[in-house]
């Protein structure tokens, strides 16, 4: 009898012990995912508006319909994808070139790395503040330096043509070092054999890069781009400090539009439906992107 009890006790322990470690974390995380999703969804079906308390009604899909037909929604999505697309592309091109260029031993490498780490860990709010001051039309350093090149300074952040580009430049300043450090670590981790073998075969310069370096580095390239895409789509701070979505709606990325709808106009229902639409679009895109990239990545290894 005693033995059976002990046996079952052991079995119980064996089956359930993992959950002793995992459960607290899983409970918290599942509730983090489930609670906002459910709550956001139910809110999106209501006309919840904190400016008109007590007048909340169930409105079905009306919020979704209104937002999908609104040009402001499409404008914000366009801006978001321009910001993320060009930003990440530039960061990758610059970061990759730098990684290839600096992939050797030189004096001050550790120091160089420390310097490049600084933008990455700064708060986007502080970065936005810094660049807002640099872009200032009257006393900003950017116009001052452009003056040496004979270019007349403008109010870069207040002009329709240059506001979004100015934001992207700021983002590139902050995040190119991330790409660089990731790719440099990747390059340093590659074994020298492949390169030596290719060199014996007479490959050099561009061919070496194209047929040896890039394929070998592909997994890290994919991850670095993916991390940046996800982070870039979450951007809000930079727009908030630098342009507040303006001029007009030239820099109103979707996150900023949702924030305005929710916390300036207090139209919670509309904001929730917008947030869900945005999440669905982003998830579909990242899913396709991940699938596509991992597929091409795998093919290269086979």
């Amino acid at each position, binding site marked *: 009898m005693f033995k059976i009890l002990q046996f079952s006790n052991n079995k119980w322990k064996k089956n359930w012990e993992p959950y*002793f*470690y*995992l459960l*607290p*974390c*899983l409970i*918290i*995380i599942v509730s*983090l*995912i489930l609670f*906002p999703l459910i*709550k*956001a969804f139910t809110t999106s079906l209501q006309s919840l508006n904190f400016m008109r308390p007590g007048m909340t009604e169930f409105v079905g899909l009306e919020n979704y319909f209104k937002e999908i037909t609104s040009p402001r929604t499409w404008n914000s999505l366009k801006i978001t994808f321009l910001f993320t697309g060009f930003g990440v592309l530039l960061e990758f091109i610059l970061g990759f070139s730098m990684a290839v260029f*600096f992939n050797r031993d*030189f004096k*001050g490498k*550790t120091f*160089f*790395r*420390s*310097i490049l*780490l*600084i*933008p*990455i*860990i*700064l*708060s986007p*709010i*502080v970065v936005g*503040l*810094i660049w807002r*001051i*640099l872009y200032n039309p*009257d*006393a900003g*350093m950017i116009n*001052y330096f452009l003056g040496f090149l004979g270019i007349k300074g403008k109010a870069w952040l207040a002009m329709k043509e240059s506001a979004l580009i100015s934001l992207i430049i700021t983002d590139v*300043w902050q995040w190119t070092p*991330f790409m660089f*450090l*990731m790719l440099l*670590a990747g390059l340093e*981790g590659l074994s020298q054999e492949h390169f030596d073998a290719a060199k014996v075969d007479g490959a050099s310069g561009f061919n070496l890069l194209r047929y040896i370096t890039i394929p070998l580095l592909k997994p*890290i390239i994919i*991850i*670095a781009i993916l*991390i940046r895409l996800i982070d870039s789509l979450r951007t*809000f*701070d930079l727009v*908030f400090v630098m342009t507040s979505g303006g001029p007009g709606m030239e820099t109103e990325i979707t*996150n900023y539009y*949702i924030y305005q709808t929710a*916390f300036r106009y207090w139209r919670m229902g509309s904001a*929730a439906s917008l*947030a869900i639409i*945005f*999440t669905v679009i*982003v998830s579909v895109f*990242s899913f396709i992107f991940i699938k596509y990239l991992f597929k091409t990545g795998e093919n290269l290894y086979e």
Partner: protein
Amino acid sequence: MNSLYKKRNKKFFKGIIFYTVLVIIVFIVTFPLIWVILTSLKSHIDTFRMPPKWIFTPTLIHYHDIFTKHPFLNYILNSIIVSFSSTALSLIVGLPAAYGLTRFKIKRNKDIAFFILSTRMAPPTLVILPFFILFRSINLINNLLSLIVLYMIFNLSFVVWMMRGFLREIPTEIDEAAMIDGCSRFLAFIKIIIPLCRSGIIATSIFCLVMSWNEFIFALVLTGQKTRTLPVAITTFIEFSGTHWGQLTAAGTIAMIPLIVFSIVTQRQIIRGMTMGAVER
């Protein structure tokens, strides 16, 4: 002789080009930061002088102002409380979970880990709306507790993901040996495994601290007058003092100096953590 000379010459020029590029990049990265620090030390009149004054008598008046005219010390304390307590809490919950994922044969082990990480991908606006409505209904707006809870949840996914990598590097034989010596598994985890992955825990905490210290949108929505964290306080300075760059840059400098010092001191751990996550996946 001649060719040797040419070769050396070529090498010399290559070196010059290399270090020129390096200096340009260092300049582009550091100039904005140096400029902000300089601006915070200039008197109000010098700030707007064009061409800029490079040599001036520094003043600490703006630093004095933000501490006396605004409750800036209070904001700093808020930021410290929120980032340290949320990091500690997420380590307490996340470490055992990461341990569980590496030590037990759990079905769909990888899926669970990926699922945990995917929580970081949701747009912040989707997350903040429901939590704002919830915290508003239970009167937790303008209370640091609401921020601590949210940051804890967000850091948690990160802790699990990173510590999984560090814990995998410690062979399971070590826990088994401790358990044969009569330790329970949990005691072995606390007394032996945790001290062994100290450097991993430090790297992970650094990331959590930095993320909580810098986080903006949740803090913007959930805090008020008294509970503002540093990033939110800085944006109120922008609205408030518009062109008063002195105070603005002083506030910005205070927010970034700890991070800069931190990043130089812990450079190795940060880079290791950053790239390890990548290699693991």
